[in-house]
C-alpha cells in the first residue's frame, strides 16, 4: 500500500515532465516548491514558459486524471459489493448513459447557460436523473435488492442509449464533438475541475471507508447482515447514492472512461483480498496511477490525442487477460 503511494508521487512527477515540451523533473519540483512556499528563489533559474506549462496546463490535467481514476475505482469496489457481482462497474446502473444523455443534450442544443461548464453540469444532472429513475423503478418492486437494481439499471440504460443514438443521428456536424466527449478526455482541465472532483471523491472515499465493514457484511446476504446488527437496505441506499454522486462527477468532468472501475478493483482483489477496508484505498491509489498513466500516453507519446477511454481499454484489456489466465493456471 505504501509502495503504491510512493509510486503515485513518483509517476506524477515523471508524468508532469513529459509531453510535447520536455521539462526536467528537477524543474517540475522547483515549480512545485515555489507554488507551495511562495518563495521566488526556487524558480529564479526556471524558464517562465515551463512554469506556466507545469502549473496551469499539465498539473490540473494530471491531477484531474488521478482523482477521476481513484474515484471510478473506489466506486467500482462499492458497486461490485452492493450488486453482489464482481463484474459490475460504476456504469452498471446506467449512470454513464444518463450522463451521456445529459451531455449530449447540452451539446446538441448548444446550451451554454453555465459557460464552459454547461456540458459537465448537464451530464451531472443526467446522471442524477438516471439514479432517481433507477431507484424509483427498483423501489416499486418492494426492496432494493441487487436483482431489482440491476434490472432497473438495464431498463433505464436501454431507453437512454436509444435516445443517445437518436441525438447522434440529429447532431449532423456536432457528432464528432459528441463522440469525442463521450469517449472521455482530460484536455484543458482547470484547477476548478481539480477542486470539484477532489471534494466529491474525497467525501465519497471517507463515506466508503466509514462503512467498509458493513459493505463487506451485506455481501453475505440480508439475513446474515441483519443478524450482525446491520440494516442492509439502509447501507445499500447510503452507499449507492454516494457512489452514484462520485461517478456522476467523474463522468461529467471527463466523459465516459470505461474499464478502470471494473479492472482496478478486480486486480486489487488478487493482491489485497476482498476486504473493503484494504481494497478501497488500494484501488484508489492504483486507479489513480493507471488512469494518469493512460492519460500521459495519449498526451505525451501519441502523435494525436486519442480518447482516453480507448487507451484504458486497449491497455487494460490484454493486461486483465494476462492476469486472469495466469491466476486460473495457478489454481487448477
Amino acid at each position: 500500500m505504501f509502495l503504491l503511494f510512493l509510486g503515485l508521487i513518483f509517476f506524477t512527477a515523471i508524468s508532469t515532465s513529459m509531453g510535447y515540451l520536455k521539462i526536467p523533473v528537477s524543474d517540475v519540483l522547483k515549480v512545485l516548491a515555489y507554488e507551495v512556499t511562495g518563495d521566488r528563489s526556487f524558480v529564479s533559474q526556471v524558464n517562465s514558459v515551463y512554469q506556466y506549462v507545469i502549473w496551469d496546463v499539465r498539473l490540473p490535467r494530471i491531477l484531474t486524471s488521478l482523482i477521476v481514476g481513484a474515484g471510478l475505482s473506489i466506486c467500482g469496489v462499492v458497486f461490485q459489493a452492493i450488486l453482489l457481482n464482481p463484474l459490475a462497474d460504476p456504469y452498471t446502473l446506467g449512470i454513464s448513459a444518463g450522463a451521456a444523455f445529459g451531455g449530449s443534450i447540452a451539446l446538441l442544443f448548444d446550451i451554454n447557460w453555465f459557460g464552459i461548464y454547461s456540458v459537465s453540469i448537464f451530464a451531472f444532472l443526467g446522471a442524477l436523473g438516471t439514479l432517481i429513475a433507477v431507484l424509483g423503478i427498483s423501489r416499486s418492486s418492494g426492496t432494493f435488492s441487487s436483482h431489482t437494481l440491476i434490472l432497473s439499471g438495464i431498463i433505464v440504460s436501454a431507453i437512454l442509449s436509444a435516445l443517445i443514438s437518436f441525438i447522434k443521428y440529429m447532431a449532423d456536424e456536432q457528432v464528432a464533438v459528441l463522440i469525442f466527449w463521450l469517449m472521455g478526455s482530460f484536455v484543458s482541465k482547470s484547477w476548478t475541475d481539480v477542486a470539484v472532483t477532489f471534494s466529491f471523491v474525497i467525501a465519497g472515499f471517507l463515506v466508503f471507508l466509514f462503512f467498509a465493514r458493513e459493505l463487506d457484511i451485506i455481501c453475505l446476504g440480508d439475513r446474515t447482515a441483519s443478524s450482525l446488527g446491520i440494516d442492509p437496505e439502509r447501507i445499500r441506499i447510503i452507499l449507492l447514492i454516494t457512489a452514484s454522486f462520485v461517478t456522476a462527477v467523474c463522468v461529467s468532468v471527463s466523459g465516459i472512461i470505461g474499464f478502470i472501475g471494473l479492472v482496478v478493483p478486480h486486480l486489487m482483489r488478487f493482491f489485497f483480498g476482498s476486504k473493503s477496508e484494504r481494497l478501497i484505498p488500494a484501488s484508489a491509489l492504483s486507479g489513480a496511477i493507471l488512469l494518469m498513466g493512460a492519460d500521459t500516453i495519449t498526451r505525451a507519446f501519441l502523435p494525436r490525442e486519442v480518447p482516453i477511454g480507448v487507451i484504458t481499454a486497449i491497455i487494460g484489456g490484454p493486461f486483465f487477460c494476462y492476469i486472469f489466465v495466469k491466476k486460473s493456471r495457478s489454481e487448477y
Partner: protein
Amino acid sequence: MSIELFRLDKVSFFYKSSKKKAIDEISISIEKGYFWGIIGPNGSGKTTLLDLLAGFKKPSSGRIFFNGKEILKYKKKELAKAISFVPQKFYVSIPFQVKDILIMGRHPFMGRFSPPSSYDLYLVKSISELLKISDLSDRYITELSGGEIQRVIIARALVQDTPVIILDEPTSNMDISHAIEVLGIIQDQVRKKGKTAIMAIHDINLAGMYCDKLIIIKDGRIVCYGDTSEILEERIIKDVFDVECKVIKENSTGERYVLFKKKSV
C-alpha cells in the same frame, strides 16, 4: 423450573403478495437452555417463524417477547449480541477469504475502525478447529463446496458467541458424517455452555437424535410442541407429513429414530 426465552402471543404474519397467512396466530413459550427443533412440511412456515424470532420480520399482528421485552423494542446491535443466525440460502459471489468471513461474526463487538482483539482472533481460531475448517482459512469462499460453505457459515455464527443461535436447515448440503458432527457441536454448545439453539430441519431423524424439544408446524399453525421423546410419534408424523412410519425409542437417552414406509403410488 425452566426460564422463558421467547414468548409469542397470537403472532400472525402474511406476505403482501399472498392472502394466506404464512404464520397463523401462533402462541408459544420457548424456554432457555434447550436444543429446539422446528419440523414441518415444505411451505409450513418454518423459515418465516425463524425470521420472526430473529427480529428480521415484523409480525402482521400479535407480539413477540424476547427475555421479557418486546423484540421490536431492541436495538439491532443489542439483538446482534444476543442472537446469531445461520441462513438456509447462502451465496457469496465476492471472493472473500474464509478467515475474513469468520471475523465478520465479531462485528457487533468491535469498534468501527478498531482491529480484531486477541479474544476475537482466539474465538475464530478455536471455532475453526472445532468445525475442522482451520485448513480452509486462507481459501476463497467462492471456491468451496456446498457442505464446506455451510460449515463456514455455522462457524461464523458460533464466532458471534451469542446466548441464542437460530439455524435454518444448517445441514441440508452436508454428508451424513458432517451433519452428525455439526449437530453434535451445536448440542454441545447447548449442554455445556447453556446456550439455546432453535433449528428448522427437514430430516426428522436428525431432529429426533439431537433436539431436546420439537415444535411441529403445518400451514402456519403449531400442531404440537414439547419434549422430543413425548411428541415424536407415528400418529403425529402420519397427520403432519402424510407418511406411514415406525418410531424406534431409545429410552436410555430419549433419542428417537424414525423408519419411513413406502407410499403406494
